[in-house]
């Protein structure tokens, strides 16, 4: 059986929740010793702008998962989340059909072989300069059945509303 795949890639180009005040919360661990500060100062930082905080990032991921659930109930979803963000992850991202990983490569390969359907959400939204993220996001939808044209449209429309552009 040939696996169908539709994908989308875009970049966050502005603050995602326009006209809403947003707390600047870097949510880094507290630094106390000279060595702590020296280590921190040694990290490289990216030229890309920081456009959201962890709270807003989780909100976007949670909204994407909610929309995916409506389109494909119970869909297995893997999401790249790099760091414990210092706040609780929204409940729907903790559901048993969702897995949050640092790197999706190996698990995506395994799931593509057996799991139907499968949604992969991989973003590099920057929360803090030292994460060196480029604000990109990719979606990949895999299915054993023929997918309707533009199956990812509801998720893409949502991302556009949040300032993601191709």
């Amino acid at each position: 059986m040939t696996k169908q795949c539709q994908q989308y890639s875009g970049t966050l180009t502005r603050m995602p929740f326009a006209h809403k005040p947003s707390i600047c919360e870097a949510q880094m661990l507290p630094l106390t010793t000279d060595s702590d500060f020296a280590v921190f100062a040694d990290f490289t930082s990216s030229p890309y702008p920081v456009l959201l905080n962890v709270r807003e990032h989780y909100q976007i991921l949670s909204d994407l998962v909610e929309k995916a659930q409506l389109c494909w109930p119970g869909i297995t979803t893997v999401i790249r989340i790099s760091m414990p963000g210092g706040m609780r992850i929204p409940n729907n991202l903790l559901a048993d059909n969702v897995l949050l990983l640092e790197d999706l490569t190996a698990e995506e390969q395994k799931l593509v072989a057996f799991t139907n359907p499968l949604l992969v959400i991989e973003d590099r939204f920057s929360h803090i300069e030292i994460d060196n993220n480029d604000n990109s996001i990719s979606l990949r939808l895999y299915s054993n059945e023929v997918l309707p044209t533009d199956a990812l449209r509801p998720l893409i429309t949502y991302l556009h509303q949040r300032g993601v552009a191709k």
Partner: protein
Amino acid sequence: MDQTVSGLVVKGIAFTPLPQPLFDQLLPIDQVMSLLAQSLGSQVNQLIKQTGIPVTEFERHFLCSTMIELPFTTQSVKWQDIATQLKEYGDHQPDTFVNAYECASWGYSLRHYLKQAELEQRQAKYMIVSIMDANVYNFEFWRYNEHWEHSGFGITTVILEVEAPLTDEMTIGCAVTHNGVAEFATVVRRTMMKKPGAVVALPFFPVNVQMMFEKLLRGQPSLPDLHANHGHCFGADPWLSLLTHGLNNKIEQPQRFMACSVALNGYYAIADLMMTPDTVLIMNKEWQRD
């Protein structure tokens, strides 16, 4: 319905303590991560070998952590490079890294594995998970903080066998209130009510939290808190607790335990499982750089 035994059996637990500080002086992070990967790779092979389980039995192997995140968050180290180094020790080594659920990451990973097996309509037989927490940048916060006081660091690998179809052996969830640890204690007590004979292996916390556990667990049998010996060792605590118990008390017949972890953000994992006379228990010497 109450069951008197769990279908989940511990085949082996290995723990390698890591020194504090890890090195006399900070080394380049890619070098540190490579050295840790070597120690993990050897430990995994050591444990699998002693259990006698063919390495081909392991379909997934997650490496979990609570506090190793900055090397990856800052992209100073790429997980794929570590996975490639681990592969030198075999295809059964961890190829995926999970830290989003902090100390409960091992439970969420195993839940995912069991769920996928169910979706693929096959019976999972053996499961393996490793946990690594190391203060790779020697941050003071990770050495000691007001949440859990002293930390302990180490590398852990656990092998489980699904001996009978699982019903409710894994309890995975998240607190809804802001007092996640107290809520977790009530979930543990509720879960124990359904598990006759189970002894609980809790995460290690300072005395004030231990007192809260005692109060909320209302005298349910539990293994000793080892915070004074090891500090809080993140997701490794319940496994270190079972390992210590097994080494100090010869297990002559299957015994039922509940391995419990809770994260600061309220995620929790509880595994109802059996230790048997065949459970392989490995407490390695403190790791030292060769």
